[in-house]
């Protein structure tokens, strides 16, 4: 797919690199995002997603058209370099993915395990097993603070979102929708199917880092029982 720039605000462009959810696309998004942030002080803020980057610029100092040309050049340069010599994989700048183990008490609180199992023609135990078998990649943070979009879910346990979202999904809920899985860092409305809950904090504005899961990281889910879950909660919030 060709690189595109769409106007997103009077002082923002959406730089679209692709239209797929894939690891190679995600790697390119983050390489280009890094390069865009270094273009100059006229870049105010960027918000990378699966295959695109929202880029805010200082409209008082620069022309939108000039910024678009710089963004297109920048993306072309970074992608060209990575395609020609696969420099991305070999360079010292690219760190190996950080790994996280996220403990999950499956079936804790209100959940959709039975509905997922029925929809997929599986037992609840199989749903839980397949959810833990995959190593997920963090594709993007967004929607809510620290909400990590993780992919891709095993094809055997894919299910659409709820027709009517829940008014309140508790913090720590581990949920799935289509090819994705995620953890709700804070209580919020939500339409994803809940499988269980983690005691691990995923957003704390006072902590360093604020969000432990970052784009490019790898995540595995590990089942814990209710006793361990509650013990962990006490350790986290003494």
């Amino acid at each position, binding site marked *: 797919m060709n690189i595109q720039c*769409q*106007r*997103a*605000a*009077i*002082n*923002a462009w*959406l730089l*679209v690199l692709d*239209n*797929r*959810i894939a690891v190679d696309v995600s790697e390119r998004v983050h390489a280009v995002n890094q390069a865009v942030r270094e273009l100059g002080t006229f870049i*105010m*803020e*960027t*918000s*990378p*997603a*699966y*295959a*695109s*980057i*929202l880029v*805010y610029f*200082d*409209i*008082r100092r620069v022309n*939108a058209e000039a910024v678009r040309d710089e963004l297109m050049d920048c993306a072309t340069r970074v992608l060209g370099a990575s395609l020609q010599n696969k420099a991305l994989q070999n360079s010292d700048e690219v760190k190996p993915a950080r790994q996280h183990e996220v403990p999950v008490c499956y079936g804790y609180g209100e959940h959709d395990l039975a509905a997922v199992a029925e929809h997929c023609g599986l037992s609840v135990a199989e749903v839980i097993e397949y959810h833990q078998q995959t190593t997920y990649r963090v594709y*993007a*943070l*967004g*929607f*809510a*603070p*620290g*909400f990590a*979009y993780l992919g891709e879910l095993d094809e055997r346990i894919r299910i659409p979102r709820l027709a009517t979202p829940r008014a309140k999904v508790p913090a720590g809920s581990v949920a799935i929708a289509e090819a994705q899985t995620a953890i709700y860092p*804070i*209580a*919020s409305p939500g339409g994803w199917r809940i499988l269980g809950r983690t005691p691990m904090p995923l*957003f704390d*504005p*006072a902590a360093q880092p*604020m*969000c432990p899961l970052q784009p490019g990281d790898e995540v595995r889910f590990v089942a814990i029982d209710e006793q361990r879950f509650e013990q962990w909660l006490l350790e986290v919030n003494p």
Partner: protein
Amino acid sequence: MTTRRLRIDHIGLQASLQDFGRFGYLAQGVTRGGPLDESAFLWGNRLLANPPRAAQLEILMGQFRATFLADTAIAVCGAEVSVEVDGRTCPLWQSIAVKAGQQLSIGMASAGLRVYLAIAGGFQATAQLGSVSTVSREHLGGLQQNGESLQAGDEIDFAAAPQATVGRRIGWAYRPQYQQTPTIGLLPGYQYEQFSDSARALLVAHEYQLQQDSNRMGIRLQGPAIAIDQQQHGLLSEGLAIGALQVPPDGQPIVMMHDRQTLGGYPKLGFVNPLDLSLLAQRRPGQTIRFHWQQLSTVTQQVRRFYRFFGITAPY
């Protein structure tokens, strides 16, 4: 030493602490927040010679009473309300001197929705991620740093400010009118090219009504449905800018406001002129608005002039 504080005696629907917003954390999923009517907010700080980002109270529909525990100066801008200090009627859009022990009483809004109470030097609270702006969905900001709105009994510090000039006011010509249906500027953007000519024309040919569930995240509109192309259903979630005009599958547009989610997957026909978001923010559920298409070059000049006047970078 006197306590430089405001004590809240009564709150009507809702009041929240807002500075200009939380910037720099979009990539972590943290939204901006800040005043929905930026124009009224920036005027309030200007009247008091405050820094443009100084924190104020955003009061929904008025009906607010508070007592000053120290001498200071205030300005009330935004929705049309009666303002009294110890029973003496005071004008809107003007800096007013107040004394320790006096009570401020703001009446019910007769037009518009959001009232901004600015105070000399700005309200003070512990910032989170560089801002005190209250974003309830994110449990961030506000007096308790948990995203909660203000309550009767709360006491809020304000800064020891240099003597603010009182009696400064804004000329009538610059004061917005909230009674009439506003015409809101629209600009082509995002997936504009994928919408049909008739979809683009429909949006500016009819009035749209604000739905009841409009809030600080988004203004939901109701009117003739905007048709979405089949191929637009599979859009990946992407960065959602304030002002973006989303079209969900039911064709009823939503204008994203300051507490919006940072990523979203609905197609977007364009975005609202950032200066017109202030007018949109003052419309009530059930009231109507009209759209018109504008030129990027015209709006760019307007936006530059506006933010240069207030001495601030265009927000992002």
